[in-house]
């Protein structure tokens, strides 16, 4: 369809050496905790709540994993972008 709403998902690849470990997950969770509605991270068929460090860790994302970040409310678009940038920037590691 043309004129579709802004995309509510972003696909990114984990680039930092350690993958999604406790500290990087904590950074994501911190951003996601400010959202209006739920923020999700999906790897393969498994979906995790982005505001939970433990849930994110259970995805077992190593370097090179492809993940999809999704939001449920358009108001959280900045958070979606910020998380995607964080991941693509290798968490500043």
């Amino acid at each position: 369809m043309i004129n579709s709403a802004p995309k509510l998902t972003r696909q990114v690849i984990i680039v930092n050496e350690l993958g999604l470990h406790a500290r990087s997950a904590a950074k994501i969770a911190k951003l996601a905790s400010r959202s209006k509605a739920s923020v999700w991270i999906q790897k393969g068929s498994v979906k995790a709540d982005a505001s939970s460090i433990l849930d994110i860790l259970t995805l077992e994302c190593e370097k090179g994993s492809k993940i999809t970040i999704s939001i449920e409310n358009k108001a959280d678009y900045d958070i979606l972008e910020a998380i995607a940038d964080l991941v693509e920037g290798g968490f500043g590691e």
Partner: protein
Amino acid sequence: METTDAQEIIIKGINASPGICIGKAYLVDREGVDVLRHYHIPEKKLSNEIKRFKTAVKKARDDLDRIVANSPKELKEVHILETHMALLKDKALYGKTIETIKAQRVNAEWALKQVVSDLIDVFRNMQDAYLRERSEDIVHVSNRIIINLVGAEVVDIASIDKRVILVARDLSPADTSQINLDRIKGFITDHGGKASHTGIIARALEIPAVVGLQTATRKIKNDDLIIVDGNSGAVIVHPTEKTLEKYEERNIEYEEYRAVITRESQAAAESADGVRLEVMGNIESPEEVFSVIKYGGDGIGLYRTEFQYFNRPEFPTEDELFDKYKDVVDVMVPKPVTIRTLDINGDKALTNHLSYDEVNPALGLRAIRYCLKKPNVFKNQLRAILRAAAHGNVRILLPMISTCFEIWESKQLLDEVAESLDKEGVTFNRNIEIGAMIEVPSAVIMADALAENVDFFSIGTNDLIQYSLAIDRGNEHVAHLYQPLDPAIIRMLKHTADVAKEKGIKIFICGEMAGTPHHIPLLLGIGMDELSMNPQSIPVVKRVIRSLRVEDTRSFIKEVLKQPTAKSTFELINDTYGSILSEQMYTEGSVQFSDRAER
């Protein structure tokens, strides 16, 4: 008590931290927490139960807060404790427990236990060793809550007043951060691996530790005499006289080696033919300056400043930076402190900053390029550096220089900053040495032109090797091609050093190469004035320098420059200096050439 029937037992574990200690066992007992009651909560009491749980979590949080506040700042596990504080309120733990209390109408301890055991199952089945060990974090966090719920006493490690060896199923970062070095000889645990917190902390505290022993807490009783051999990863319970003697000897031998090497390291590194070299430390945070002093560093050859920009919503203020620089300068004065300006893309470090993507960040907007594009960010740092320079011996090092322009522009900014500081009446010192980091091939080729504009060169071998050989050493497919001894690299080092000598400026090296004993004959032959490395490498490098004659290394380097490959260069080093090197490196043994990358 001495009992005649006690048999010597050897338990094998993982050697987490080197050294040997002999002493009495002190068991840190957490049992009792495992036996939890399970009872039904009537519906109208559910909200009370949830409140009880929340209070227990809050208390755990307050306890951790207090421990963090009282921990010596130089202990790096503080951030682990901060992760634990975040986990306390994590949805998968906190939220899920509350849900379980409601759904099953059970007491909080029982609900938490179920949630935790499900979580641990998930983590323990993971492929990645790091993630598997995170199950320990979950256990530590939930133990803290459960102890508050059942009202059990937490073992207070800080109150131990005997010289003992700690025996525990596991030690949490909160436990280990309270360990008083004077009282603990070593520690051993049932759980954990080399990468676990216990191992990391033992190495940081430099006390022997063996982890992953499985059965230590069952086989060892309080006051049992035990030997911890952190070198081989063995624990001996009820040792015989003969075993005790053997280990006492080994211990003396090891301690002597360490004492000699540490004592010697305070003296200058002067070669056998009387040439003095400065051996400096690389640091990232102000706390590390104490390691540099302890290991006998002659100054700071590389103070990385990125650290202060990470994990924060905004750029650090000038005053914050000034404090961090002054802390180091004050401790080192009158020895030099080389402050390298921001070596990353600052926007990417900030947590909330929305920055654009780069396809190839290594060739992108970073280091000096970023700083010159964001003069306000750069000036902020330059002001802090010039102010710190008024308090001691400060040098400024510009990273990733690839053209003369970058030096000219940086100097221009330094002048502007100095002028405004002057106008404001702030104390500063503009008269400091400025150096260029040589880590881009173009800088090597243009070294003669760059040398006209700076007081010193500092070669950053890590990046120079990657940029010159076109190797990303993080890429496993090509990492084996990352070879510091590649003849191309050695010729570049030699060329840069020759130009520096000709132009009368100083030549330093601050990459990993400088801290590798094996590379020292080569670096001396090339004519380095100063080597900078991680603090722990300083003693052994000083030792190697003392055993070499600079004059010999100069003729040696001529042979090195004829070598066609990294492998033949390595063999030449080994043939010429192998015996000296292995003599100086007690524990390392002889070095093998590896077709893989250095790390």
